[in-house]
Structures are given as structure tokens and as C-alpha cells.
């Protein structure tokens, strides 16, 4: 009787929880399980930017655009990694299949309910291997922590000196950032993208890094009306001074944005622009501690230098 109970229990646990070697819950809520720890990984450009600094090197990357233009991948060593896509929504399926991947790592976009690269890429890649990865959500910090969890499960050792040093650098940068904000009560900021036709003001909710900054105490002006997708308010250059922040954060995905802003005669209608209280906004591309530490340091320097009472 007792023996059969044990047998039944063993069988039950055996069926309910088979001895899989690797399991991960993705940002879409789906659990991916594999017999072995996956070694051959195809990563989206952002996932690669999250994983490579943690010691996990994918065999291939598919990028949203020319890899040389991908801000997220700048400074990372990509030698030996195959590039299987350089256009959003496209991937070289033959190259991908030839690489025999164990796992596809991407980011889950809850609003679009799809993974990095869009449905076409997912349809092309998911027959080759399961797809998983963290959720693109309300915080870059959380996103990086999700990458840490994933990297550890894949065999990364976060105690490696270089990896640990990146994290320490970030923590120091964050402390300095918070201290700088605390030292400047009343300072507010505005995040923008500048085009030759108009000035686009970013909504905080539309950008994870802006939500981080806001959580850490930075007072960011939210535009009154954001567009239908909730990312921007478009301002004619004639009314570029609709908001008067103490500090302007300019989207730094491309250098052209700052140049476009400075070329506009009405850019300096914003007192902060006239006073040179302008710095970079790492828009939508941060994925690791090293890059985050750098960008926070730039922001901190700008906050330290800014006059918080520029605008009465």
C-alpha cells in the first residue's frame, strides 16, 4: 500500500514536473522549457545589447536597421556573431536555419503584443527554436534585471570582475544622479526629438528610461496632448516655447536631432536652450549597466550645471 503510494507519487511528479534542464518564463507569460541549457542563441539587437555585456554571446543577431547605426550595439564586441537581419521586420531565414539555434531571444512588446522585429520575424524564426525574453515595460532597470536573470539561467557568472564592475559603476552613477536632483529642488526637464518641420515633445509614459528618471526624482514635464499612440506631442516651431523647462533632454539616437534643433531660429525661445541647459536623452536604446552609467553621468553633469530657477 505504502509502496504503491510512493510509486504513484513518483509517477505523478514525474508527469507533472519532468526533469527539464532549462526553463524560463518570457515577457509574454509563456514558459519555455528545454532538455538542455540552450547554447546557440539568436538574439534581437536589443536582446544582444542586454546579453553580451553579461557574458552571453549569441551566434547571430537580427537588427532593426544597419548594425552600424544601432545605438544599442555601440561599443559591444560583435566579432564572430553573424548578422542575419538589418531591416525592421526582415530576417535571413536560411542563414538563421543553418545556424541551428536552440533559442531565440527577443523583447516582448505588451502594447503591440509581439516580439522585437514584429510578427513576420517571429513567424520566420519560431519554427527553428522557441522564442522568449523579457518584457519591454515601465523601466529600463527592470529590463536589465530581467536580462541578468535570463543570463544566469544560461550559465552567466555575474561575479566576473568586468560584469560586476559595470553594475557597481551604474550604482554609483545612479547615486550621483539622485544626489544631483536632490540638490536642485524645483528643476524640471523636457524630453524632445527635433525635426526640421516640428519639435516633438516626449510623453514620459512612452519611454522606459524617462519613467526611470521620473521614479528617481527627476521632474519631467509631460506634454498636454500626446499623439494617438501616446508617445509625442507635435509642436510647430512657432510655438517651440509652449513649455519652459530648466533642462532640455534631446533624443540622441542620431546626432542629426541636436543639429536640427540648433538650426531652428526659435529653438532658443526656450530659455533653457538659450542658456545652454541642454543634454542628451538616451531614447529607447539603453539595455545594459555600462551604457546606462554613461548616460546617467552625462545627465548628472547637466543637472549639476543647470540653474533650476531659470524659469520663474
Amino acid at each position, binding site marked *: 500500500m505504502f509502496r504503491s503510494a510512493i510509486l504513484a507519487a513518483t509517477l505523478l511528479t514525474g508527469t507533472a514536473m519532468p526533469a527539464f534542464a532549462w526553463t524560463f518564463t518570457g515577457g509574454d507569460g509563456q514558459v519555455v522549457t528545454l532538455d538542455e541549457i540552450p547554447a546557440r542563441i539568436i538574439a534581437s539587437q536589443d536582446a544582444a545589447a542586454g546579453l553580451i555585456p553579461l557574458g552571453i554571446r549569441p551566434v547571430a543577431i537580427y537588427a*532593426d536597421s544597419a548594425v552600424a*547605426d544601432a545605438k544599442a550595439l555601440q561599443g559591444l564586441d560583435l566579432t564572430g556573431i553573424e548578422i542575419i537581419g538589418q531591416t525592421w521586420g526582415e530576417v535571413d531565414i536560411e542563414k538563421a536555419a543553418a545556424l541551428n539555434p536552440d533559442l531565440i531571444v527577443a523583447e516582448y512588446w505588451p502594447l503591440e503584443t509581439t516580439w522585437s522585429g514584429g510578427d513576420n520575424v517571429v513567424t520566420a524564426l519560431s519554427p527553428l527554436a522557441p522564442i522568449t525574453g523579457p518584457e519591454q515595460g515601465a523601466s529600463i532597470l527592470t529590463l536589465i534585471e530581467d536580462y541578468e536573470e535570463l543570463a544566469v539561467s544560461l550559465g552567466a557568472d555575474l561575479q566576473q570582475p568586468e560584469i560586476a564592475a559595470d553594475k557597481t559603476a551604474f550604482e554609483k552613477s545612479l547615486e550621483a544622479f539622485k544626489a544631483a536632483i536632490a540638490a536642485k529642488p524645483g528643476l524640471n526637464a523636457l524630453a524632445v526629438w527635433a525635426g526640421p*518641420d516640428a519639435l516633438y515633445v516626449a510623453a514620459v509614459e512612452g519611454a522606459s528610461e524617462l519613467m526611470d528618471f521620473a521614479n528617481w526624482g527627476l521632474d519631467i514635464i509631460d506634454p498636454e496632448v500626446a499623439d494617438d499612440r501616446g508617445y509625442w506631442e*507635435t509642436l*510647430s516651431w*512657432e510655438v517651440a516655447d509652449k513649455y519652459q523647462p530648466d533642462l532640455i533632454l534631446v533624443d540622441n539616437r542620431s546626432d*542629426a536631432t541636436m543639429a536640427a534643433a540648433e538650426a531652428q531660429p526659435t529653438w532658443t525661445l526656450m530659455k533653457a536652450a538659450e542658456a545652454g541647459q541642454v543634454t542628451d536623452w538616451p531614447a529607447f536604446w539603453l539595455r545594459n549597466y555600462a551604457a546606462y552609467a554613461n548616460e546617467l553621468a552625462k545627465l548628472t553633469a547637466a543637472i549639476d550645471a543647470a540653474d533650476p530657477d531659470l524659469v520663474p
Partner: protein
Amino acid sequence: MSARQGKAARLTLGLVLLLALLAAVGLFSLTTGARAITAETVWQALIAFDPTSTEHRIVWDLRLPRTIVGLLVGSALGLAGAVLQGATRNPLADPSILGVNAGAALAVVLGVAFLGMSQLSTYVWLAFIGAGAAMLVVYSVASLGREGATPVKLALAGAAITAVLQSVINAILLTSPRTLDEVRFWQVGSLAGRSIDVVLQVAPFLATGTVLALATARLLDGLSMGDDVARALGQRIRLSRGLAGLSAVILAGAGTAAAGPIAFVGLTIPHVARAITGPGYRWILPYSMVMAPILLLGADVIGRVIAPPGEVQVGIVTAFVGAPFFIALVRRRKLAAL
């Protein structure tokens, strides 16, 4: 007064009235925008500029350049469209339909993507080369076969080449967000954000193109009677077409360089002009030249006020106005009679 003189007097009066209307639209363009500035302040800004006044700076630095660009580009597009319709005897001819815009746009996109160009001064040259090359290709393709470059074949070749060029442009923009960032505003066609430098840059070309185009009026009248008649009248057809084509490329290339590809203005306006003046190009050309900037600036002013605090680019507004007109035109049977 003979009937002929009476007609000339009427058409001259009409032209004067249109010039007055153009001046009114120009004033409207100076006084209308996302920021409310009174007509009085605009006037003050024009006669006694005060650099410390925000309103004065907006009038001088934003509205005046874009108004001038609108006037110049509008007249260039109207004239180019009229010349092309006459030279090709194609009522649907328009710089955008004959591949000129797409060629100019592709050249600019290539320059930005692969040569790292970012100055409007270089855009102008690229746009010219692209516009000229595209028109040559369209003309060569249309010339294949027995009848040569008939109006229908020109329109078909233009549409096909435009589609090809457009897909190349899209491919480059999709793979290079940096290029997209730099040409995004330029791609739709807009008068916003152009400084007076742009005007100075393109003005010599527009002047040359305008003189050349107006000088072809007599040749166009000859061509409009058909190649055989024109030839019988002693006209050198290839030369006439070449001169007219050259002026259209210069005008459309410079216009496109300054404001981006703007469709339908060059198509629509010559038809309206022809409806008023009758078939003579000596009247169609100046009428097109004055009426097109009225449409372009008017569309720009509308674009400035319909979506505050942002703006709708003029290329989108003209497409909204022009597309229904284009469809009506295609559906009319009288077309072939041009």
C-alpha cells in the same frame, strides 16, 4: 478693338487680378500660423524689426522664408507642369508623374545615406542630377517601340520608373534610420523649416528655368498641333522638346530640392489655367506660374492651422486637394483632345 485684342486685354486683366490674389495669399501666409500674431505686429516686424521680440523673430525667421519658398517653388512647379504637358502632349504630365520628383528624391536619399551629405546646398545638386537622370530614363523607355514617346507611353513609363525609384528609396530609408531622420521632413514636401539660405541657394536655378520655360511658349504652341504639323511649320521638334524638358528639369529639380517632392500642383494648375486662357501657351505659362503658388501657399496656410499645436505638411494638403482633381481628370474623356 478686335476680338483678339479684346481677349488679350481680358487675359491681362485676369493675370493682374491673380497677382493681387497671390499677394493676398502671401500676406495671409505671413499673418497665419501656430502662434497668434496680429497683422499689426507682422507689419511692425516687417518695417521695424526688433530682434528682442519673439513675434518679430517668428515673422522674419520662420514665416517670411517659408512664404518666399512657397512663392518660388509654387511658380516653378506650375510652370514645369505646364511645360511638360505641352512638350509631351500629355494632359497627365506632372513632374511627379514623369519620375522627376522620385529621381530627385532618390538622389538626395542616396547622398544622405552613402555620402553623408546633410546640407541643403548639396541637396540642390543631387536633386538636379536625379531629376535629369530619371527624366532621361523615362523618356528613353517611352521611346522604345514603333510610335516613339507617345503621351500614354510616357505616363506609363513614368509611373513604372517612379514605382521602381520609390521602392529603392523605401529600401534605403528602412535600413538606415539616420537617413530617415534627415530626410523624413523633406520626403513629404514641406515649406516649414527652410531658411533664407535655401531661397538664395535655389533662386538662380529657378530664374534660369523660368526664363527658359517662358521662352519655349511659342515652341509649345507648335508642338501642341502635333509633330507632323510642327515639322511642316519648320520647327525642330527634338530641339523644342529638349529645351522644354531641360527647363522643366531645372524648375522641378530646384523646387524639389527646396521643398521636397510635392505632387499634383504641377498637374492641376495648368489645367485650370488652360480652362481660363484657352489653348495658347503664351497665356497658359504665365497663368500657371501665378496660380500655382496661390494653391501651394494656400495649402501651406491650411496645413498650419488644421492641427494645432502641430502642422500638417503642405505635401499632404496638396495631395488631398489634388488627388480628387486628378481622378476627375482621368475620368473625363475630353483628355485626349489636348
